[in-house]
């Protein structure tokens, strides 16, 4: 028996958490004099970058270079690759590496002070190259065969909402992609997949950047069609961002592990389909375990919630075609039987009676209902417009109905000389009024048929044209309950001119023509497209409920922007992942700090859009 107690402690000669091991290559050659300080991973607008310090002590065989000569060693544009070293041959020992960051030197920062000389190299990913490319002109495929670049034309896809893409991909500079078409009959609408493909193929030489295939892009963009996208004057990065933003996509540049081919790839992704990572923190009182806790510090900022965001998308005003009967828009007291009085050729005071027998209006505002006109009640649009309207002045626009050559009939004015029993197209000149719905017969002298019918009071005019209603094309998307106790914040997304609604109403004489004598009407209904656009905007711009700045206890290379964040059931629910299943947590910024050997993450929580 002994009352002595011996305490033994196992001999430990290794760190529990070894520091991360990386190597730096410049143009493929090991560069021991560069030491990484930080790597930042981000997408638009920052994108990824790395900061490296020049430390000549790392390369004992090379003489130190001073600030003014540093560019001779690390000229801008040289390729920089930071590789993580790992044991490939476990359980044996053997080093291998995978790229963590690939970019090029974009800047050098030097500082000469009390602490001596300090030089830092700034490397950025491929986004820096795209930022220097300007988008202008359009690559067209002429029907005759040659492929031309028209520098003066706008790079506008589906300009004015009309198709201007070639029907199939065309080979150009080693790539097959869709080009602009000059022939309207040989054109189709651009899809977002084709636009992204066009921008990448047209402005980037093949082999510099690995890009997704057109099939992958079609799948990502869900085959959505473009509604007039103009990217003229933007740089290539901005053009891609504008295109991706409209279909709810994001993109970033990632290093490729495969040694052959381009060193970087553009990764276009849908934020809701990303890999998941776990951020865990053990409950208080438990013994610390590095495998159960990867949160060293966390700072959380939570906004007021739950608040429902209601997004109201507003497109263009709705346009309807109809056939309207016009009323006399002149004072009956000015009527006379003297033919010469109503012609500017024969009457010097024609301006006093210029409207008599010549001005025919719709009376949509009731301007001609009272004395001295007495033309009846104001025109009622209720059979034409599908929404509420107010009584006010409008104007006629060209008809939507088109002839066989796909040209609008314009203002289709008809005249009846027998009080509406028979109608003919009015063959003489007239002006369309711009301050009210009406026409003014502009021929110097009224033709005899018109004059005689006017004298018999059997003259009637009707016009088939379009009128703009008071309602806009609209849709509503909400990210939470509306009409409940939670407050609702409305966001108006106004996109006039892009999403249109044009319809030939049943009140048009051409609404029932189906014998093939006319072309197809210029009708359109962008309701579904507007809904997709608003839903995409709502998803991308939904309000941030919570922002968390997380620091890991060790340097982690595997986290990336857009990664979805989860929490283990055994962990503290610091990020509310367990208590809120209607939101998603996503990493938006990653900063790997090599000096402090930790990784800083910015995580945001947003409501899912329903």
């Amino acid at each position, binding site marked *: 028996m002994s009352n002595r107690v011996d305490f033994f402690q196992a001999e430990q000669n290794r760190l529990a958490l070894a520091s991360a*091991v990386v*190597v730096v290559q410049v143009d493929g050659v090991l560069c*021991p004099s560069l030491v990484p300080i930080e790597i930042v991973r981000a997408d638009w607008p920052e994108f990824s970058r790395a900061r490296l310090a020049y430390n000549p002590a790392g390369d004992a065989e090379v003489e130190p270079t001073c600030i003014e000569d540093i560019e001779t060693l690390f000229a801008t544009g040289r390729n920089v690759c930071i590789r993580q070293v790992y044991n490939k041959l*476990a359980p*044996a*020992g053997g*080093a291998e590496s995978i790229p963590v960051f690939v970019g090029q030197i974009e800047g050098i920062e030097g500082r000469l002070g009390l602490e001596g000389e300090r030089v830092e190299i700034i490397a950025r990913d491929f986004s820096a190259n795209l930022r220097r490319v300007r988008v202008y002109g359009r690559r067209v495929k002429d029907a005759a065969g040659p492929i031309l670049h028209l520098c003066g034309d706008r790079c506008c896809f589906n300009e004015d909402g009309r198709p201007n893409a070639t029907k199939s991909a065309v080979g150009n500079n080693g790539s097959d992609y869709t080009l602009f078409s000059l022939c309207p009959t040989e054109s189709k609408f651009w899809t977002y997949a084709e636009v992204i493909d066009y921008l990448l193929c047209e402005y980037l030489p093949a082999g510099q950047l690995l890009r997704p295939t057109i099939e992958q892009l079609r799948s990502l963009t869900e085959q959505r069609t473009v509604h007039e996208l103009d990217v003229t004057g933007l740089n290539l990065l901005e053009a891609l961002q504008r295109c991706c933003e409209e279909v709810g996509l994001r993109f970033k540049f990632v290093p490729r592990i495969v040694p052959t081919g381009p060193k970087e790839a553009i990764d276009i992704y849908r934020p809701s389909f990303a890999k998941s990572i776990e951020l865990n923190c053990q409950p208080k009182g438990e013994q610390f375990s590095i495998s159960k806790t990867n949160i060293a510090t966390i700072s959380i900022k939570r906004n007021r919630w739950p608040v429902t965001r209601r997004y109201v998308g507003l497109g263009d005003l709705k346009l309807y075609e109809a056939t309207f009967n016009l009323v006399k828009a002149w004072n009956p007291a000015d009527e006379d039987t003297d033919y010469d009085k109503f012609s500017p050729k024969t009457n010097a005071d024609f301006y006093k009676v210029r409207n008599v027998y010549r001005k025919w209006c719709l009376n949509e505002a009731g301007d001609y209902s009272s004395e001295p006109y007495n033309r009846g009640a104001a025109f009622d649009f209720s059979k034409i417009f599908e929404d509420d309207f107010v009584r006010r002045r409008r104007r006629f626009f060209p008809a939507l109905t088109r002839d066989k050559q796909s040209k609008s009939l314009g203002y289709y004015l008809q005249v009846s000389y027998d009080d509406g029993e028979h109608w003919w197209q009015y063959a003489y000149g007239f002006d369309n009024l711009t301050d009210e719905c009406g026409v003014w017969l502009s021929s110097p002298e009224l033709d005899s048929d018109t004059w005689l019918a006017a004298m018999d009071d059997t003259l009637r005019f009707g016009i088939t044209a379009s009128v703009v209603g008071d309602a806009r094309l609209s849709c509503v998307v909400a990210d939470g309950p509306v009409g409940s106790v939670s407050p609702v914040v409305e966001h108006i997304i106004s996109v006039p001119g892009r999403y249109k609604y044009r319809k030939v109403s049943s009140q048009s004489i051409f609404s029932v023509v189906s014998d093939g004598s006319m072309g197809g009407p210029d009708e359109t209904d962008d309701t579904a497209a507007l809904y997709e656009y608003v839903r995409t905007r709502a998803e991308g711009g939904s309000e941030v409920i919570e922002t968390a700045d997380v620091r890991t206890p060790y340097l982690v290379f595997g986290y990336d922007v857009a990664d979805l964040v989860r929490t283990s059931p055994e962990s503290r629910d610091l990020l509310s992942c367990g208590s809120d299943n209607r939101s998603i947590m996503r990493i938006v910024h990653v900063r790997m700090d090599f000096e402090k050997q930790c990784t800083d993450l910015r995580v945001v929580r947003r409501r899912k859009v329903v």
Partner: protein
Amino acid sequence: METKWYKDALYNGMTANAFKLGTVLTLGWFWVRVDGCRVLYRGGSMDSIDFENILAVVAGDAAEISPPEYVEHGSGVTYFYVVRCVNMCGDEEQTFGCAVMVVMDGGGELAACEPNDIFMMKAEQSAGARVRLAWSYFPIEQHVEPAFFRVYSDGGTGDIDYENALAAIKYRGRGYYSYESGTLDTGRYLFAVRAEDAAGMDDGSARRLEVTVDGGSPPVIEILGVEAI
């Protein structure tokens, strides 16, 4: 987890695996090792472990496991052994956490350990028709620390002379190493670098780099005229 013992006895009869696991006793209907067990597998690399054939089975609390006598070990051949736990229900873990590499020498003993291979070796011609080799060494899971890095060359003959090293670079720990040759004649040269421990055992790496030395400087370009095209 995987319960592959079912198919051994019940569907395939009295297989070697079933005998080792003991499931032949119940004709494959029941799992008999209610205290769990540990099983041993082997393969030529970690990517090709033969998990279809169990080499040995020991009790769940055993601290040692040995392959059977009939399992041969070729001299100088590398084998990877993996031990996996099986629980009381016969479910087997699917990890590589317990693995070891074994190399036997000609005498049937464990071969002496070697330093790790060098890493990311590059070569470039430096000024004055010299060749500069650069490489890196990382002591990840190393069993023996190197003492030197020996640089070998073929001298332009095509066969690297591993008997006579050009230089021995002293090991300084994890990091970058480089070697610059003397002035070389124009031609193609092969270089190799091996890590060698204090006992003279090198890593046996067959990695080699080919460098073409161009003795002359590129011709000077003189612009004699300019014309619009």
